């Protein structure tokens, strides 16, 4: 914590505690110890004091205890030469300040001085329980992210209005208190004719800084009411607010000691302060989720005018508090939904296409710093659809820049691959492929309804924010249709794709200490659990290690959980103590061992959705692999479906295992049994599908001709047919160690 801020806060706390004590003593004399002290329409007494300490204040005499507590929390103002004052002292001073402020407000109520009336305007004072309940529920379920406590006054009335409108547009409840040079933002808003009150989600607490404490009383009550926290359990109250109540202070104008002291109190709740003046920044995270204090001098904010500066100021508040705003609907001129996902745009209906044979179209998602991305900005460089002839094939580049506190470079391809799924939901829009083989076709009707290229950006941005909001905070999309530009950019994109390929190739099981689980299939295979390592794709082929990692970030209680590898048990078979423990706990204790590189000893269980299934052929000293789309008979005497019913349903069957197609290309592919060299038979379509990549994998293990030596359904569907073929081709499996 900054020395300047700490000193101010502690000084401010001393001041306000003294003020409270003086007022208490006077009132005790004037009104007696039994005079009632209560905020109106609440069952939470003085809520900050009650919820944090459990102490119920009902009369003047009850104030003695919290006052003593406040005094005990006060450290001496740091000495001029003490360079690193203790953060805890500032926070304690903050708590003392809130107690003192609430004591003062309580006494003011006892004396009939609250809610405050000034210049004919009656302030609201504390929020009553009925309203707290109504808003509290919206805060809990996310309709209302939290509240903004605006303290002081804006540079002028126009800016004041703009700030409040911006906050309202983000769904924030807005509280007002305090003044700057005697002017309060409430005065500014009233002069501009803005309606204030519960109906407009704006609450003017009072004209002084002390009334800011009502906001914290509101937050405290919400935690007790909706978080099930017991009054007095201050730690839980504060944590509840840190993680669930997205509130912050926006401090307008110069900051005095009392404002700092109150701010320190709010930081206890995890509420940061954003100030529009020059103050020290307190950037490290800790008590608050992100920064504690952020200085954003208003006139230095980039922007063409004060309105834009106000907008950016509020945007920064939202970022600092980590508020996610969902977009209700994809705003495009055509219908949007899963019903349109499989839609095909045929030649006759084609208005325009991008990519495909002889075309040029690519999509690229890049991670950027948050300052480099303007959320929601969608730009088209070059002409739009309508300027092209019907049926034209046009170059297109879709470049999506995202920023997010939890974004990682490794998630780029994971998010990029979603574009296919996102955009296909649009009516009259067909998307195929990915990266630089993207192929997009748009229906005439869609363009007639007003579909423009920027709508692609709209779809991607909205879906990313809604579905991946946990990792993505800001999205901007740029589309290019000028051939020269697309050509230049596609070359740059290819460099990035290549880098990604290299990175993925370098992502090995040994390079990580965490694998991920997938329990999606437990609904029908209750004892099945997948463990997915970097060098092995899930058996359904749909989830790789990176997907699982991203999925866990997005939904920490979801089906993909981290699995700590733990101690290695058998490096050759790929057995780890952590994996075994996880498998045991998540297979309903049905399976106690899992090897990742072996099919003969404790192979992974098989659910029902494996792309391929392999089984040992003892006579051939190897394995055969049949793919799901091969309906023919195999040398095992079983077709795919009969094999499925033997191995599927979550069973662990040594010698038989479901797996993904791409597992064949992995260096870890049944490495315990000798890898690809053990494959004696394979579905023909699988050979064709993996084509060049499989050839390369064979070459890498020093068997460039292996594919030809592996039989398929055209040469053998029985063991009797298989063996002579293998012998004729001199298949390496025949001379390897016995598989059984």
């Amino acid at each position, binding site marked *: 914590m900054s020395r300047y801020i700490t000193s101010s806060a502690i000084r401010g706390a001393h001041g306000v505690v003294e003020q409270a004590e003086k007022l208490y003593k006077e009132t005790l004399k004037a009104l007696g110890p039994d005079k009632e002290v209560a905020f109106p329409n609440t069952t939470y007494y003085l809520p900050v004091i009650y919820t944090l300490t459990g102490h119920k204040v009902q009369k003047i005499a009850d104030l003695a205890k919290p006052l003593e507590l406040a005094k005990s929390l006060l450290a001496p103002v740091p000495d001029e030469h003490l360079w690193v004052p203790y953060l805890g002292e500032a926070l304690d001073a903050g708590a003392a300040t809130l107690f003192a402020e609430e004591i003062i407000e309580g006494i003011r109520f006892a004396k009939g001085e609250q809610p405050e009336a000034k210049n004919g305007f009656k302030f609201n004072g504390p929020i009553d329980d009925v309203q707290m*309940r109504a808003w*509290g*529920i919206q805060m*809990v*379920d*996310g309709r209302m992210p939290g509240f903004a406590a605006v303290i002081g006054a804006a540079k002028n009335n126009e800016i004041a209005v703009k700030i409040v409108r911006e906050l309202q547009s983000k769904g924030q409840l807005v509280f007002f208190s305090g003044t700057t040079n005697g002017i309060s933002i409430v005065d500014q808003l009233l002069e501009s004719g803005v309606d204030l009150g519960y109906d407009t989600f704006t609450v003017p607490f009072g004209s002084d800084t002390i009334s800011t404490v009502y906001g914290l009383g509101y937050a405290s009550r919400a935690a007790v*009411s*909706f*978080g*099930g*926290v017991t009054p007095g359990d201050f730690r839980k109250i504060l944590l*509840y607010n840190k993680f669930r109540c997205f509130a912050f202070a926006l401090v307008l104008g110069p900051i005095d000691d009392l404002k700092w002291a109150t701010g320190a109190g709010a930081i206890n709740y995890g509420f940061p302060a954003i100030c529009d003046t020059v103050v020290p920044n307190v950037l490290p995270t800790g008590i608050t989720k992100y920064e504690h204090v952020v200085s954003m001098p208003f006139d230095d904010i980039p922007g063409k005018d004060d309105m834009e500066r106000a907008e950016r100021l509020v945007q920064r508040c939202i970022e600092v508090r980590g508020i996610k705003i969902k977009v209700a609907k994809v705003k495009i001129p055509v219908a949007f939904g899963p019903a349109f996902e499989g839609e095909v745009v045929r030649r006759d209906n084609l208005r325009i296409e991008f990519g495909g044979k002889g075309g040029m179209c690519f999509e690229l998602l890049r991670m950027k710093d948050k300052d480099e991305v303007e959320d929601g900005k969608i730009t088209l460089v070059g002409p739009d659809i309508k300027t092209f002839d019907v049926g034209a094939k046009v170059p297109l580049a879709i470049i999506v820049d995202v920023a997010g506190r939890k974004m990682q470079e490794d998630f780029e391809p994971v998010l990029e691959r979603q574009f296919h799924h996102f955009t296909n939901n649009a009516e009259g829009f067909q998307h195929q492929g990915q990266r630089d083989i993207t192929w997009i076709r748009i229906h005439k009707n869609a363009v007639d309804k007003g579909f423009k290229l920027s709508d692609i950006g709209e779809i991607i941005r909205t879906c990313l924010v809604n579905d991946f909001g946990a990792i993505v905070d800001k999205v901007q999309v740029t589309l290019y249709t000028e051939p020269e530009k697309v050509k230049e950019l596609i070359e740059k994109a290819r460099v990035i794709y290549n880098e990604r390929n290299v990175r993925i190739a370098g992502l090995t099981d040994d390079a990580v200490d965490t694998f991920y689980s997938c*329990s*999606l299939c*437990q*609904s029908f295979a*209750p004892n099945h659990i997948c463990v997915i390592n970097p060098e092995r794709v899930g058996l359904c082929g749909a989830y790789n290690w990176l997907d699982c990692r991203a999925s866990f970030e997005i939904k920490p*209680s*979801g*089906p993909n959980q981290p699995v700590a590898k733990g101690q290695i048990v058998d490096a050759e078979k790929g057995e780890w103590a952590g994996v075994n423990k996880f498998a045991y706990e998540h297979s*309903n*204790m049905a399976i106690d061992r899992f090897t990742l590189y072996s099919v003969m000893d404790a192979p992974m269980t098989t659910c029902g959705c494996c792309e391929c299934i392999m089984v040992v052929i003892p006579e051939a000293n190897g394995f055969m692999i049949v793919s799901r789309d091969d309906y023919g008979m195999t040398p095992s005497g079983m077709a795919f479906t009969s094999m499925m019913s033997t191995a599927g349903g979550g069973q662990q069957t040594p010698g038989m295992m479901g797996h993904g197609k791409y597992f064949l290309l992995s260096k870890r592919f049944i490495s315990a049994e000798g890898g690809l060299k053990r494959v004696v038979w394979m579905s023909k379509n699988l050979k064709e599908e993996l084509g060049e990549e499989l050839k390369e994998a064979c070459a890498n293990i020093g068997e460039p001709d292996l594919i030809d030596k592996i039989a398929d359904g055209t040469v053998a569907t029985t063991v009797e047919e298989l063996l002579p073929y293998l012998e004729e081709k001199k298949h390496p499996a025949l001379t390897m160690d016995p598989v059984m």
Partner: protein
Amino acid sequence: MAPVELPVEKWTGKIKEVKLGGNGRKSMVIGGETTLPFLKFEGVLPNKPVIAVEVQDAPPKDWPQALVSAYGDALKDPGEWAKKALSFGAEIIYLRLKSAHPEEGNTGAAEAKKAVAKVLEAVDVPVIVIGPEVPEKDNEVLVAASEVGKGQRLALGNCVEKNHRTIAATCIADGHVAIAKTPIEINLAKQLNILLCDVGLAADSIIMDPTTGSLGYGLEYTYSVMERLRIAGLMGDGMPSMPMLCDVGEESWRQKESRVTTGVPETWGDPAERAINWEIITAISLLNSGANIITLRHPKTIEFLKNSIAQLTQAG
């Protein structure tokens, strides 16, 4: 002949006990078993399964004659209806705020409050309040219902992933129980319980509705899913160890077999009798897969089930 020795399974877990009612209202506890349904020789089953009877906030438009004639004029008023249900043997009233459905009248918080107040006034047994099963509308009417019944430990549903925060919040605030509904899926059921606990709802304030089908298509699937949930709970996993509720009345009375009167083979028999049998068999099956609360509609089913439960709990 040597006596046959029964194989006894040793479970380590226990199904959570959930209390309903209280604060002036009769209270009851459900759950708490340490073994599969009715296996007294194997574990403890401290609380027998209970019967909830459905009441709606407006006269039902689509009920077959067999049901309408059983309730008569009571269908016109939720309070009277609840009393009638009680006289048939209801241990819980299952109030469905059907008119809040956008296509059934789209009534709001004010009407919901009135209907809930009427039922709470009319009967002293625990009450379950179910919204129209449209998450946004559920939020509106259940939050209102929650306020009316504050402290009386109602159960509120449906609480699904989409609106779980709202329902959890209102349950915490007013001391109610959430009915966590998931579409016949073990992981989703477990996940919703985790999410509810994350929001701060106590684990003993959750009842699972795993969603059921009726006899015929859907029943086996639900049966297995429920059994799996129950076994997982008994094996010591705390998250699927909540008691379960099955909405048998709604499911069985909407099937074709419970409704058609003409154009079917004669062997199908008397429509009313057939529909009741349908409800009975569905209910009995689900009791055996672990249901703690069964919701029913027809008085004959209620009577039959009461007897069955009594016999099953006394036996062995």
